[in-house]
Each structure stands twice: as C-alpha cells, then as structure tokens.
C-alpha cells in the first residue's frame, strides 16, 4: 500500500455525481466553505450534454499556494455515481482517498489497495431519517458534505453560515439542512478517524478576491460597456452570458421614473438573425452584442464579412467549446481563434480579445464596445467554457466613474450643418478610420448607403479596381491602428536569463503560472508573454525575436495562435514550438510542464545538430 497522502490546504477533490441529482448546489457550498476558511479553491464543473441521468463531475483544486489551473489527478474521490465507479476509482492518485456510500456492500475487486477507502452509509442514514424519495436524494448531498467537513477538519460554523445564506428567504429550509449536515458530520466523527491525512486549515490567502464565473462577468461587462441591445440564440456554453446580462439589466437598467427598460434583449431565431440584429442596432448608433459558441460563429460568417467591409461595429462574445461541428458542446477548447480572426469570405481580419479570467471578462467585455465603435468593426471576446462556466477567484471588478463611453468618430448634425466634409469611407485623420453618421442626423447632409458591395470613399457603389484597392488598403491601415488600441500583452521574466520563451493566452493562464514554477524547479527557465489581443502589437514580435525558441501553449489541435503569429508577423514557424492540449478538458500544469520539459531537453541537443548541418 502506498503511503497515504499527507497534505494541508493543497489537494484535488473530485465529486462524481449523476446529472440532475441536486449535487451541484451542495458541491458549490462545499467549495465556498473552503474559500470562507481563507483557502483558495478553483472548482470545475465537468458535465455532459444532457439534462438528467448522465455522469457529471465537480472537481476542486484546493491550493493555499494559489494555483488555480487544473492540476491533473485526484487526491480525494467522492464517488457518488455507480455508472462511473471504475474510472473514478482508477483516477485516484496512489496514496489518495476514496469516499463512497457504503450502504450496499461492494466486492473487494472494486477497490484498490494503494488508496484509503472511507465508507459512509449515506443512503442508510437518509433512509432512516426521511421517507420522501426526493428528500432522501437531496439531503444525501448535504449529508456527504457534513461527513467530508469532519474528515477534512472544516469548521462547521462556516458551512452552517453558508446554508443560512443559501436559503435566505426560505428560512424553513435552513434547519433541516443544518440537521442533515450534522448527521453526516456526527457519523464521521463517531465512526471514522478524523481528519484524514489531507485536511484544511484556516488561512488568509483569499483576500478581497471575488468568486464569479466568466460568463456572468462578461454579461456585467456588457452592462458597463453601455450595451443596450442583446440579440442571441441559446447555445452551450454561452447561454449563461445572455442570462447574466438579462439579470443585471433588470437590476441596473430599469428607468426608476417609468419602470421602463433601457435595454432590449431578443432571443433570435438563429445566430444569423442574432448577428444581423447586432449589426442593425450598431449601424443605428446603439451598442449591441451577441453571445455564441463555435457553431454560431460558423453561421455568422457572411454577416461578419458585411460588418467588416461596411465598417459597422459589432461585439461578439464567443464562449468556445470543443469543435469542429457539434464537437464536444460541454467541453472546453480554444479552437475558434482562426475562424474568428479571419471570419467570412474574402480578405478579412478581425479584432480578438483574449481574457484570462472573470476579471478580464468584465473589463474586456466593457472595453469591446469602445473598441468596436472606435474601430467601426466587429470585436470578438474569446472566452471558453473553462472560464465562462466555472466560478473562479478573481480580482474584484473595478470601474472609474469618470470614464466615458468612446463612441468613436461620429459626425454630428452641427458639424454637417457647418459644412464639414463627409465621406463615409474617407480617411481624414490618417488612421484608416473614417467618420460615420447615424441615420436621421441631418435633413440634407450625411446620408449614405451602407452596403456589402465595393464602394468609393463617398460610399458610392463602384466596381472600379482602384477604388476597391484604395478601400481595402485603408482597412489594413485601420487594422494597424487597432494594434495600439487593443490590450497589450503581459510579459513575465524568468528568474534567470534564458533564451527560451513561451506565449499563451486566455484560460491557459493559471495552469501556465503553475507550470512555470515546476519547470523552474527542474532548471527550465522561461520568459513568458501572455497575449491579450489580436492584432498582435510590436511587443509580441519583439518577444519572439528576443528568444531562440518560443513555446506556444494552446488548447486546440492545429496551433491556431501559432499559425496567426507566423501569418501576421512573418515569424519562422520553426522558432515557434506548439504545446497543445485539446482533449476537451482544461489544460493542466502537469501537461504543460512535461511537454515543455521534454521539448526543452530535446532542444538542448539542437546546437550540436546545427553544427553538423
């Protein structure tokens, strides 16, 4: 038997449940209780494309050191689902713990001898106490939380406090839940050795951070970004973004005097209509967005080309999931980078923002509207399921009340009246960005025809090559301007000078931070650059130029950001080494560490080969 794992405040606990069994709220309460003890925890919901009956998991990374990426491996498995028993038991680290419902005896062959098995007769306890089938099911979840709270040495008062919060307004539910909690806790304390080798201890590592999901944060960002029109079509994993916008608008955007709404949310008939409405509203001077995932992006392609070519602002939140086609709707990937960067037929390029966590989902969610209107073009905010649908500890949201919405270059009635020259596609400032007018501005000046066909600087239809070239070259200049406006990359220097670098983005961030520490322990030092937007600014090119080899860490098969780097910056692909995890689970520090360590070791041999060649 492997030595039982001993650890305080550093472990992975995973709950294996059945979808629809009511486990989600109990598990979330458990995570929050750990946070309330001042210990950072990062939960991840691993769920099927299903409403009821299929397996679902809730994995929590508990880390006083502050690591928030998926680690890989499980230290404590709470195996509540017979369907997945074998794989759940197999996934436990040697020396780990298996917590299970011991009501029915299990054959010895179903266990492993290198783990500690902790059985609690949950069904028996519940059946003794409750007669109603649904109650038996729901309270079983609370009973196991109670038992675990004893096994992990958690403070009962913290969990009780959370129960009170959760049932605020439904007070009569508090007492039975607290009772169920103590049934589990008391049984464990009486019958089992508490605590286990793995346990919790109060700390102060949470600080003022908030615990929120990225979709919710992005929806709030859209409120602060001044969006008034949301047109969307339900699709996993983006639906909760539109729902969050709706929820926040109902609280924050109702005119107190009239009770009327300063927002319009339309559930469209499909993604084509969603983006069409966004383009129509933005053309007419409102801030509008849609929220979708990969299949929706595919459907929106034609409209995105229109918005690019006719220069209409649009904000698209793409909460990426596993592709292609229906792919893995409830699994995560960063695989829409290419299809968004070059969305639509013909020569197009689009602005992408790449948030790492809910905090950036909020800030970039708001900023996207300024950028879309300033640049008069679609802007994509590229979330993924991992940051979109999971709660994450993040820096609190912040807002500067002196901040104004940047409505971009809009010619006013007064300017038109004063005789200012208006050419819808005329580059007056040399930044490639022309002026626009809102419909209805002036009785006789400033009207123009918006079209997806080629036009001259004054919006007049033309198929003359020189006008076409003039226009699309200006669009390139505008894209150059975008480089200065989008959020810049964030560099981190290794503890010692190195010729190795790594580029990563989005939800890879926490796993990368941990991998860097592990690699440094092994003597592999890397400078890193977290890319936060496309187009890439000069710093990105400089970073690559300053290193012999740059690992590009991504969650897709085809190294899409690496491809963008080679296409847009003319970088020799040989210098960009892809590190790719794309199985649908969030990228782990273990994976990154091993992959980079391997390739770095191989690279050490390279200079010799170079000499030979």
């Amino acid at each position, binding site marked *: 038997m492997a030595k039982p794992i001993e650890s305080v405040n550093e472990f992975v606990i995973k709950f294996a449940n059945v979808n629809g069994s009511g486990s989600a709220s109990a598990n979330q309460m458990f995570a929050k209780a750990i946070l309330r003890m001042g210990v950072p925890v990062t939960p991840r919901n691993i769920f099927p494309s299903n409403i009821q009956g299929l397996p679902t998991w809730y994995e929590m990374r508990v880390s006083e050191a502050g690591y928030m990426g998926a680690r890989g491996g499980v230290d404590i498995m709470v195996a509540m689902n017979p369907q997945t028993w074998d794989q759940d038991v197999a996934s436990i680290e040697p020396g780990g713990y298996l917590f299970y419902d011991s009501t029915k005896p299990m054959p010895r062959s179903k266990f492993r001898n290198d783990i500690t098995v902790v059985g609690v007769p949950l069904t028996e306890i519940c059946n003794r106490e409750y007669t109603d089938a649904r109650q038996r099911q729901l309270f079983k979840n609370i009973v196991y939380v109670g038992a675990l709270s004893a096994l992990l040495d958690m403070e009962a008062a913290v969990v009780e406090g959370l129960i009170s919060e959760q049932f605020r307004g439904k007070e009569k539910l508090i007492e039975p839940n607290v009772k169920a909690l103590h049934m589990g806790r008391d049984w464990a304390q009486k019958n089992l050795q508490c605590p286990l080798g793995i346990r919790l201890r109060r700390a102060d590592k949470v600080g003022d951070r908030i615990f929120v999901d990225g979709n919710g944060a992005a929806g709030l960002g859209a*409120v602060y970004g001044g969006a008034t029109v949301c047109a969307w079509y339900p699709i996993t994993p983006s639906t909760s973004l539109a729902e969050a916008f709706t929820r926040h608008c109902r609280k924050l955007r109702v005119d107190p005097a009239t009770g009327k709404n300063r927002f319009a949310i339309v559930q*469209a008939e499909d993604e084509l209509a969603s983006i*069409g409405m966004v383009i*129509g509203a933005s053309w007419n001077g409102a801030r509008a967005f849609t929220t979708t995932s990969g299949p929706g992006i595919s459907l929106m392609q034609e409209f995105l080309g229109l918005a690019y070519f006719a220069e209409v602002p649009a904000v698209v939140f793409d909460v990426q999931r596993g592709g292609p086609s229906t792919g893995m709707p409830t699994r995560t990937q960063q695989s829409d980078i290419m299809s968004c960067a070059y969305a639509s037929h013909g020569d197009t390029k689009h602005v992408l923002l790449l948030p790492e966590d809910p905090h950036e989902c909020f800030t970039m969610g708001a900023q996207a509207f300024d950028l879309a209107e300033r640049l008069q073009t679609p802007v994509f905010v590229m979330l993924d399921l991992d940051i979109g649908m999971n709660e994450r500890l993040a820096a*609190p949201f912040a*807002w500067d009340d002196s901040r104004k919405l940047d409505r971009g270059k809009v010619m006013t009635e007064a300017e038109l009246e004063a005789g200012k020259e208006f050419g819808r596609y005329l580059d007056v400032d040399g930044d490639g960005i022309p002026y626009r007018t809102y419909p209805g501005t002036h009785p006789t000046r400033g009207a123009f025809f918006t079209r997806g066909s080629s036009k001259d600087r004054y919006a007049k239809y033309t198929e003359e090559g020189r006008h076409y070239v003039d226009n699309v070259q200006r669009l390139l200049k505008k894209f150059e301007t975008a480089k200065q406006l989008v959020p810049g990359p964030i560099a981190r220097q290794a503890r010692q000078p190195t010729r190795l670098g790594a580029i990563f983005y989005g939800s890879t961030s926490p796993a990368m931070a941990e991998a860097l520490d592990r690699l440094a322990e092994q003597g592999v030092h890397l400078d890193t650059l977290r890319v936060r937007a496309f187009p890439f600014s000069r710093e990105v090119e400089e970073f690559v130029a300053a290193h012999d080899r740059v690992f590009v860490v991504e969650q897709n098969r085809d190294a899409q950001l690496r491809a963008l780097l080679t296409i847009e910056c003319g970088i020799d692909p040989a210098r960009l080494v892809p590190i790719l995890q794309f199985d649908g689970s969030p990228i782990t520090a273990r994976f990154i560490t091993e992959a980079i360590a391997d390739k770095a070791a191989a690279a050490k041999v390279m200079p010799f080969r170079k000499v030979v060649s």
Partner: protein
Amino acid sequence: MTYLAKPKLHHPALPTNKLGFTRRDYEGAISTLCAGCGHDSISAAIIQAVFELDLPPHKIAKLSGIGCSSKTPTYFLGNSHGFNSVHGRMPSVLTGANLANRDLIYLGVSGDGDSASIGLGQFAHVMRRGVNMTYIVENNGVYGLTKGQFSATSDKGSASKKGLQNTDSPVDMVSMALQLGATFVGRSFSGDKTQLVPLIKAAIQHKGAAFLDVISPCVAFNNHAGSTKSFDYVREHNKELNRLDFITGRAEITVDYAPGTVEPVTQHDGSVIFLRKLDAGYDVHDRIAAMNVLQERQSAGEIVTGLIYLDPEPEDLHAHLATVDAPFNTLTEKELVPGAAALAKINAASR
C-alpha cells in the same frame, strides 16, 4: 438602363408638401433596373407616398437584402440612410435598427427570392415580433439578377421564359404574414399606382408590422404567356377587395361618400383610412375571414388585392420589451453605466 447622372435642377413650379419639399426631394439615384421594370413603379409609389405624407426624408431608414428589389432603395429617398444588407437577412438588420432608434420610420424592401426563399425564416420571425415597419416584397416570381430561375412564389404549373414548368408549390407571403401575426397586411400590383400609393401610406402610418406583397412583373424574365406574374395575367385575375381613397393625419374629414360603401378606419395614431369597399361583405378586421377569402379566391385562380387585414390597435416589439421612450442611441453613460458604487455591491455579494 442609363449611366446619365440625374439632373439636380427641377421646375420652379413643382408642387411642394407641408415641409416645403418637392417630389424630387424624395427621389434617389437613377435606376439601373431594366426599362419597364415593375420595381421602378414601386419606387415611384414609395416616393409619392412619402411626399404626400409630408415626412422628412432623413427620418426614414430604408433597408434591403440582395436582389433586383433590394437594389431599389438606392433609387428613392436619397436623403435617407440606406442599408443594403445580406441576402435574405434584411429583417434582422431592420429589427436591430428599430431597437436602436424607435423614432425613425423603417422601410424594409425585399423580393420574393430574398424573403420567400433564402430569407423565409427571417421574414417569419420579424412578423412574429411585431417590429414597427413597412415591409414591402416586390414579388415577380423569378430570379432576375441571375437570369430567370423560378422563385419560391412562382405558381405551380407556371412556365419560365425558357419554357420549363414549375412543379413546386408556391409560398403565399400574404397568408404567411396573416398567420404569423402581422397587424397590417395588403397586396397590390406595381401597375396600379392608385391602389398602391394609399396602401403604402397606410402601411407607413401603421404602428406595427405592416406587410405589403406587391406583384411586380419582371419585364426581362417573367412577363410572357404562361407566367402568372405577368402584367396581363395579374390584370386579368385581380380580385380587388377595397380601395383606400384617403388617409389623413388628424385633419378634418371633409369628403362625403355614399353611405355603406365607405368605411372610415381610425388607426391608433389618430389617422383615418377611408376604405372604399368593393366586396361589400369583406371585414378587414377579421384575420380568420381574411385567411378564408385568400384560400377561396386563390383556388378560384384569382389574385386578391387591397387591404386584406388591419389591426387598429397593434402592439410593436418596443411595447413587448417595455423599452424606454428615448431612442437607445441617445442614451449616455449617465443612463447606461451603473457606476463604481453598484459594482462594489456586486463585488461584496460575490465573496
């Protein structure tokens, strides 16, 4: 088709409307459609209607999809913003535009390919939502720009110019609009300006989803014997339900009619439509009866025209969504951004 620029000068004695505009002020660029195209007659009817309604041209937004019909917004209302969007998707762009500024008048111009084929879904949903607009389908039963393929409104059994027989059943957009909840539904004929102009005026004044199916023969590809969308065929099979003689604002009603033949219909905004009945038993407020009459007449080989259905108390999308009266595009940080204090509360609730 001509490449000559349209002269800006006009006769000094041209009549002006209440705003001081002449009819010419509502014109657009010169049409590039074929000489004699029904669509140009519809453009002329739109110009006439807007002129007669005394509407400031810049307060109208004209939106279209792709196709011959969708090109026409260039040829009328040159001082209005226009949006030639993508094929079959004008309804969604118009919906978004309408949400952004409820104070403008929205004119959606489409064709039978744009609305009945590629855009059937968006056509259906914009009607369902009750977007305040005038949606005109310039229906010629044929793809003109791609030279003569059948469209989804081509009648079963009708012949193409090349002699092919259409074997598919047609989409009747009027029946669909009725079924989907449009609150103003009419059909007219590009060759009958006296019927068409008042219908467009009434549709523009209607504060809800107004749909007009205007049969508009394609002189190049669908005006031959065997076509059911030719000038001759439509004239011979036209079954007029009524005529809209006058539409007024809140002006005094001074015209006398023989009792029983005219029905004054007051719209929600106070304007009155005088409906001269040609079919005495037809009730323009009865949606189900309208559907029955359409089916009956259609099976008798007739094309029903006139005002087919009118809901005098329509509700539009803004009412459904309970939006503020001020256009969204006039709202600022003050009304839209909740500020740091509200954010601090959200932070506090997220720990």
